[in-house]
C-alpha cells in the first residue's frame, strides 16, 4: 500500500504529460494553414532553364523540329503497309483453313482437360458440401423460368384487364333508356 503511492503518482504524471502533449499537437495541426511543401518548386526553374537552353542548342544545329513529325508519319505509313499485307494474307482460303484447323485442334485438346477439371471440381465441392457451378446454374435457370412465368401471368392479366375495359366502355356507350324499355316490355 505504501509502495503503490509513488507508483500511482508517477502514473498520474505520465498520463497528464501525455494528455497535454496530445492537446498541444492537436492545437498545432489545427492552427497550421501553410500548404504542404511542393517538391518540384526547387527543380522547376532549373528544368525550365534547361529546356530553353537545349532548345537554343538544337535549333542552332541543322536538325529541324519537324523531324519528330516526319518520324511519326514514317511509322504510321509503315504500320499501315504492314497491316495491309497482313490483311491480304489473312483474307485467303489458306489462312481460313489454317485457323479452322488450329481451332479444331485446340478444341480436341481442351475438351477432355475441361471435362476432367469440371468433374474434379464438382467432386471436390460435393465433398465439401458446397454448391457447384452446375447447381448454381440450374437454380439461376429456374429463376429465369419463374420470371418468364410471372411475365406470362402479367400479360394474361393485362389482356383480361383490357378486355374488361372494352366491355365496360361498350356498356357505357349503350343508350340511357335501354334498361327502361326492357322493363316496360316485360310488363
Amino acid at each position, binding site marked *: 500500500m505504501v509502495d503503490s503511492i509513488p507508483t500511482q503518482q508517477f502514473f498520474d504524471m505520465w498520463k497528464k504529460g501525455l494528455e497535454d502533449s496530445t492537446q498541444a499537437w492537436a492545437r498545432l495541426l489545427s492552427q497550421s494553414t501553410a500548404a504542404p511543401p511542393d517538391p518540384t518548386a526547387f527543380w522547376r*526553374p*532549373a*528544368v525550365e*532553364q*534547361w*529546356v*530553353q*537552353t*537545349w*532548345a*537554343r*542548342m*538544337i*535549333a*542552332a544545329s541543322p536538325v*529541324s*523540329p519537324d523531324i*519528330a513529325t516526319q518520324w*511519326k508519319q514514317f*511509322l*504510321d505509313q509503315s*504500320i499501315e503497309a*504492314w*497491316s495491309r499485307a*497482313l*490483311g491480304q494474307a*489473312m*483474307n485467303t*482460303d489458306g489462312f*481460313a*483453313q489454317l*485457323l*479452322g484447323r488450329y*481451332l*479444331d485442334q485446340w*478444341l480436341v485438346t*481442351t*475438351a477432355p482437360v*475441361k471435362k476432367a477439371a469440371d468433374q474434379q471440381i464438382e467432386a471436390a465441392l460435393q465433398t465439401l458440401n458446397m454448391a457447384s*457451378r452446375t447447381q*448454381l*446454374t440450374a437454380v*439461376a*435457370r429456374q429463376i*429465369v423460368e419463374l*420470371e418468364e412465368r410471372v*411475365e406470362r401471368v402479367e400479360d394474361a392479366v393485362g389482356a383480361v384487364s383490357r378486355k374488361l375495359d372494352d366491355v365496360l366502355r361498350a356498356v357505357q356507350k349503350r343508350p340511357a333508356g335501354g334498361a327502361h324499355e326492357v322493363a316496360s316490355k316485360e310488363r
Partner: protein
Amino acid sequence: MGQERFADIVERFTNGYTDGVSASAESVRQWQEELDRTLRRFQNLGEMVSNPVEPRTGVTPREEVYRRNKSRLYRYQSSRTHRTPVLFVPNLGISRPYIFDLLPGGSFIEHMTREGFDFYLLDWGVFGPEDNGLTLEECVVKILPRMARKVLETSGTDGLSVLGYCMGAPLSASFVASHPEIPVQNFINMAGPIDFSRVGLFGLWLDKKYFNVDRFVDTLGAIPADMVKAGFKLLKPTMDLSTNINLWWNLWNDKYVEGFTALNKWANEYVAFPGEFFRQWVRDFYQDNKLYRGELRVGGRSVRLRSIACPTFVVGAKEDYIAPPDCVRALIDAVASRDKEYVELPGGHISLIAGRGASVHCWPKVSGWLGPRSS
C-alpha cells in the same frame, strides 16, 4: 561573388558550345515546344502508371424502366421535344454499351437527349453459364417485342423509332420485319451487317467449310470473353501497336489522355457470347446469309426485309472492316420503304459512333434525319 546557380552553369556551357552559330527565334520556339511536350509526356506517363484514375463513363442521367433476366431497358433524361421515342438496340455480347455514353461531351446518347429525343437503351447484359440456352429466336421474338412495348407504355406514345447498331441492326431488322403489329415508325441501321456475303474477314473465317460452330458450342458451352477479344484483335493485328504509338505522340495532351483512358477501358472489357445464340448467329447469318436471302424464320415467323416499309436510314463507315459499307448498304435495296437514305461517313466501326469524328460527322446526321420524322 555569390554562389552560382546550377542553371547558370549550364547556360555558360551551352553558350560556349554554340558560340558563333545563331538560331532563328521560330526554330528555338518550336524546339522548346517539342521538348516541353516530351516532358509532359513523361509526366503524364508517370501519373498513368503510378496513379491510374478510373474514368467516369456512362454518366448521362437515366432510370431503369424494365428488366428481364440480364437485359435492362434504360430511359434517359431529356426535354422530350420529339414525340416519338427511340429504342437503341446495340450488339449482344462482345462489348459493353457504355461506349455510346463514354464521356461527358463525347457521348452519342448525351447528344440525342440534348436534341430532345426520348431515348431508350437496351442493355443486353453480361452473360454467364446460366444464359447458354439463350437463343437468337428468344431475343427477336420475346425480348425485343417486350422492350418495344415497354417503351410505348412508359412513353405514352403510339409509335417508336428503332435504332440498331452493329449486330443490333440485323437483330432489330429481324424484329421489325417479323412483328408488323408493333408500330415502328422509323428504322435506323448504323454499321449493321445485312448482306453477310460481303462481310469481310469474319465471313471467310466463319465459313462452314472451315469453322464447325456446333462442335465449338457443344464443347465450350459459351464463347468466352477472351476468345471474342482474340477474334476481334486478329482482324487488325497492328491495332495495339499503332494505338500505343499514337498514345505516346499525344500523351502531352491531357484531354487526349482522358479520352484514351475511357476508350481503353471499354476496349479491353469484352463480354462472352451465350452458346446457343452464337450457334444461330453464325449459322443463320454468317454461314447461310438467311436474313438477306429472305429464308430466316424466328419463332415460327418469316423474316422478310421487304416487310419493312417505314422510313429507313442506313449509315455505313468508310473504313469499317467489321461491317464493310457494301454489307451495310444492302438494307436499302432490301426494304420496301419509299423514304430511305444511305450515307457513308468517315471512320471505322467504333469511330463512326464514338469519338471526336463521330460528333462532327455522324451524330448530327442521325439526329437531323430522325428529328423531322419524330413529331
